[in-house]
């Protein structure tokens, strides 16, 4: 067998290596995607007071501390058996929408967007945020930075700290929203809606307006029919902060809908000898390997899967975009809902629709009179001893599970992070891209290397918390190896 290695992966957290083994004909026999692991996060937490977790877990990663903070406080609500006040839930969600706006914005302009805005064959040195700004204009670049700044400001105002929030507590939130703050946040939300619409317009012009890019989106290179996961409210509308976890099958039929606390009944984790990272799958279906289809327990938890799992979106402008998305991509309606889209590159578009939804939801919450209520916390009276908290992180469903003794000292900690959900799917997409693009010992050109990278960049994977890893640039190495394991070619790109 021959082997190709890609190491490091640009614009991705941590660092990774892809080994591609070729068969005797020079076609892809197997691909292995590996990331290094950090050690001892669970041990670091066990023995600590449970209430420390929202400020410890948000240190796992500098990219989405807000998501860890939120999953953690929700787990603590359960662990202390206390239901937050309605105002506290709204403040938490408001805080969370600001985070989604900034995170999705950054992904589009700095990470995922360059593949489209500059094209998959542009030289890697241009395929970054600088190239994007050169193409869409300085004014747009300024808007990106302003969007980040105003939402970081909201996160700091509500969360108590700029980067690692501290305001979430079991039973609620530690800081009420003043009338002046509410008014300021409403203005910011309005600007966010404008900005999201502008960004969708950019996507329209550059991607949807270019037949070559649309063909790429619709090509079978990145097509996988799997189950889709997402959090929905009682009307099966997408929600980032709370609700039930819903899984739909590849045809769009509801397969599961469960409370976060039941996750272990529905999700199991597969261990493979060649990587530290586990592969979660649907327990009821079982692990059938890295394969598509209704018979395989592989699922995804991404912006695309969230739209697929929801019947609709709760805000008007985002709902319009949601309909346009499914209609443009040719999805049929069955039982009053769209069938899932399985073209994985459409995840970039789905992310922008989520950006608009987050902005509109922020607007709604900022206008809600209850948001300034001083009733922001219920004081816990008991220790229930266990709690699971789930939120939709930008990169997928995030689960924190804590078990404690009667004094609320932690005895067990388990985290299933957004990216981990997609580990099997990412591996499958890399393999698919490699199979399509490497044939008969064909020389791996730069564009080809980038398309392998595009396969996982669309998932916006962030391995810094999937492996509990550090935020380094992701150097990427691809080794192309023969059947005998001899390295034929090594492609390397520093992060």
């Amino acid at each position, binding site marked *: 067998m021959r082997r190709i290695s890609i190491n490091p992966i640009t614009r991705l957290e941590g660092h990774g290596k892809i080994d591609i083994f070729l068969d005797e004909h020079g076609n892809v026999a197997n691909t292995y995607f590996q990331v290094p692991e950090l050690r001892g996060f669970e041990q*670091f937490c066990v023995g600590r007071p449970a209430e420390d977790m929202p400020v410890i877990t948000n240190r796992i990663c*500098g990219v989405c501390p807000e998501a860890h903070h939120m999953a953690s406080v929700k787990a603590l609500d359960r662990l202390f058996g206390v239901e937050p006040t309605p105002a506290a839930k709204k403040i938490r969600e408001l805080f969370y929408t600001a985070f989604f706006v900034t995170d999705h914005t*950054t992904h589009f302009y*700095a*990470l995922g967007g360059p593949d489209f805005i500059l094209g998959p064959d542009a030289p890697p040195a241009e395929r970054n945020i600088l190239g994007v700004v050169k193409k869409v204009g*300085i004014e747009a*670049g300024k808007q990106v930075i302003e969007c980040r700044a105003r939402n970081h400001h909201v996160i700091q105002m509500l969360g108590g700290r700029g980067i690692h929030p501290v305001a979430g507590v079991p039973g609620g939130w530690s800081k009420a929203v003043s009338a002046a703050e509410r008014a300021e946040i409403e203005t910011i939300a309005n600007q966010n809606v404008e900005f999201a619409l502008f960004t969708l317009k950019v996507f329209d012009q550059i991607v949807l307006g270019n037949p070559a890019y649309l063909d790429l989106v619709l090509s079978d290179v990145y097509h996988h029919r799997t189950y889709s996961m997402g959090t929905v409210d009682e009307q099966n509308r997408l929600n980032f902060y709370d609700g039930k976890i819903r899984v739909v099958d590849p045809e769009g039929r509801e397969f599961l809908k469960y409370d976060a606390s039941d996750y272990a009944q529905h999700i199991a984790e597969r261990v493979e000898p060649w990587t530290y990272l586990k592969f979660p799958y649907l327990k009821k279906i079982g692990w059938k390997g890295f394969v598509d289809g209704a018979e395989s327990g592989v699922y995804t938890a991404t912006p695309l899967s969230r739209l697929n799992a929801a019947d609709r979106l709760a805000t008007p402008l985002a709902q319009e975009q949601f309909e346009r998305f499914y209609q443009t991509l040719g999805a049929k309606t069955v039982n009053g809902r769209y069938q899932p889209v399985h073209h994985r590159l459409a995840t970039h578009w789905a992310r922008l629709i989520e950006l608009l939804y987050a902005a509109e939801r922020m607007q709604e919450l900022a206008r809600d009179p209850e948001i300034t209520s001083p009733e922001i916390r219920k004081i816990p009276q008991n220790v229930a001893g266990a709690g699971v908290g789930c939120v939709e992180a930008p990169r997928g469903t995030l689960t924190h599970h804590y078990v404690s003794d009667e004094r609320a000292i932690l005895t067990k900690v388990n985290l299933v992070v957004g990216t981990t959900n997609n580990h099997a799917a990412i591996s499958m997409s890399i393999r698919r891209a490699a199979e399509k693009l490497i044939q008969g010992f064909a020389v791996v050109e730069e564009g080809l290397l980038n398309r392998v990278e595009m396969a996982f960049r669309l998932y916006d994977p962030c391995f810094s918390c999937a492996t509990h890893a550090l*935020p380094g640039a992701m150097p990427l190495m691809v080794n192309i190896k023969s059947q005998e394991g001899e390295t034929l070619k090594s492609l390397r790109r520093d992060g």
Partner: protein
Amino acid sequence: MSTIIIGIGNPVLSDDSVGIKIEHTLAHALRARPDVETRELWAGGLRLMEALKGHERAIIIDAIVTEGGKPGSVYTLKPTDLQQSRNTCSSHDAGFQEALELGTMLGLNLPPQITIWAIEAGDVETFSENLTRDVERAVPIVVEGVMRQIGMEKQLSASGGEQR
């Protein structure tokens, strides 16, 4: 000169926290300097570039892992040096150099003078609040170096014993 001192790292990831630990020591020593702002960050790239806005001088302190580097070694670098290095502070969104170019392109007011103090880490893969021994020894060296850089040598000799 308006100066910002930024310590970058994860406080619970062994030697990755060295930048933050040094920044905390400096924050305490420099509390009487209104022209110096100190700040903790755990994200390079765009976040770091955005934090520099509006200052005339920036001093960035971070852990670094270089090939064959000896843990505890201290390097002073310019932003352009980072392209060749595997610095732990690069982020999810853009490299630091890329972010600086973006800031310049957008006309953000970035400091003309940027110094990076990088400390070779021994362990950045284990969750712990402690530094490894060699890296611990580098802390007073960098504190002293930064104090000198911003004209605080005298205060240093007065309180030098305390920092060690």
